[in-house]
């Protein structure tokens, strides 16, 4: 069943009692990898492999995104877990791609292989610039941080994007990845600054 159909069916079952309160978030802590990326943490044999993607074909537009996560003093955060979620190459979330990874304990770099998302239309029919949602958790982060990666080659779409326009103009660049010229593949660099002069834009949805 189409995921949106599932949501519509459930919407019809909505009851009108007093709403419950969402469970409070707590930090994922320094050992998040034990539960979410056990082989990455050196724990082998519990699962046949770590859950790092949702199993869909990367299609004809594979890409690589590499980067680091830095704190307010510019220090590398090497204990972070990141999840990526985006539309397929046709801009559809019904076949959305999901990835999970950790920053490397030594280098502090994360590295994912995925596919270039297609443009999505918003509810007013505007064509949005292609983007990838990124969710970040770690020790010291009490509630997961949500940001987005946009791509430099879609400048016209980026300049007219209704979501990017909601951001102060001098901060929008923090969401645009750079092309890694030296790579033979489609490789992008996207660093995340949790705090400070170069602080990345984070969202509330």
């Amino acid at each position: 069943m189409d995921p949106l159909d599932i949501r519509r069916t459930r919407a019809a079952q909505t009851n009108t009692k007093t709403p419950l309160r969402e469970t409070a978030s707590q930090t994922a802590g320094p050992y998040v990898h034990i539960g979410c990326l056990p082989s990455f943490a050196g724990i082998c044999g519990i699962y046949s492999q770590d859950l790092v993607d949702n199993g869909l074909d990367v299609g004809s537009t594979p890409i690589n995104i590499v980067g680091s996560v830095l704190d307010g003093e510019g220090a590398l955060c090497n204990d972070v877990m990141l999840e990526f979620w985006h539309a397929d190459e046709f801009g559809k979330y019904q076949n959305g791609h999901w990835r999970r990874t950790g920053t490397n304990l030594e280098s502090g770099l994360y590295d994912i292989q995925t596919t270039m998302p297609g443009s999505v239309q918003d509810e007013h029919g505007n064509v949005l610039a292609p983007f990838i949602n990124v969710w970040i958790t770690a020790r010291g982060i009490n509630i997961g941080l949500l940001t987005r990666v946009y791509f430099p080659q879609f400048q016209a779409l980026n300049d007219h994007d209704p979501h990017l326009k909601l951001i102060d103009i001098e901060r929008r660049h923090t969401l645009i990845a750079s092309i890694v010229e030296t790579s033979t593949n489609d490789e992008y660099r996207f660093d995340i600054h949790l705090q400070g002069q170069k602080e990345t834009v984070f969202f509330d949805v």
Partner: protein
Amino acid sequence: MTISNSERFAQRDYSVQPSIDYSDYRSTILRHPKHKLVALPQSMADVCGPAFGHMPLGEHDNDMIINYAKAGESAIGERIMVHGQVLDQSARPVPDVLIEVWQANAGGRYRHKNDGYQAPLDPNFAGCGRCVTDGEGRYSFRTIRPGPYPWPNGGNDWRPAHIHFSIFGSGFAQRLITQMYFEGDPHVAICPIVQAVNDERAVDQLVARLDMANSIPMDLRAYRFDLVLRGPASTFFENKLEGN
């Protein structure tokens, strides 16, 4: 494609969420954004999400008592079953969603290269497990009760005994990581990670209750822990119309 109020999630109520800038929890000082979050309208990105409800699970994925133990052996500690229901804010069950859990062993030691606490590792315990909610949003797993442990926070800080939970919902905007605590633990009131949540009821909602009705005599005790994920925005609109 228009998303209606019954598909869109309710705006997050930050009064029941932890403060992100809470200097008593030292690691937040340099890791919290200082700019306000930019509010975005929800779109398909947020109401859709990856679905793991039908992924093949190993027979013991939800049993930390034995899933890392040598044949015929089991982890040391208080044998417990943890169970509950995942609901959304309109009290509807959230079926077929993945829950991943992790924890320290009975002595408070994590199986992670960065944990140097002197309590020994248990060769039969890793502290990693997962399960999926059923058609009614119910889940359960078996484990041993983790111990409290000291952590570097500039003083003499000890975490209450806790199990970390990571949950997916039906939409990516419901994604949640939290911690479950145990009824009657005096460390809950003095832990800065817990107390970053400045709402007594919200803290209480993180505390699992002893559930003797579901214990198994001469085998294990049970703890009950329910989780609530963001629910549809329409729940709140309907209540407003009724004058609530």
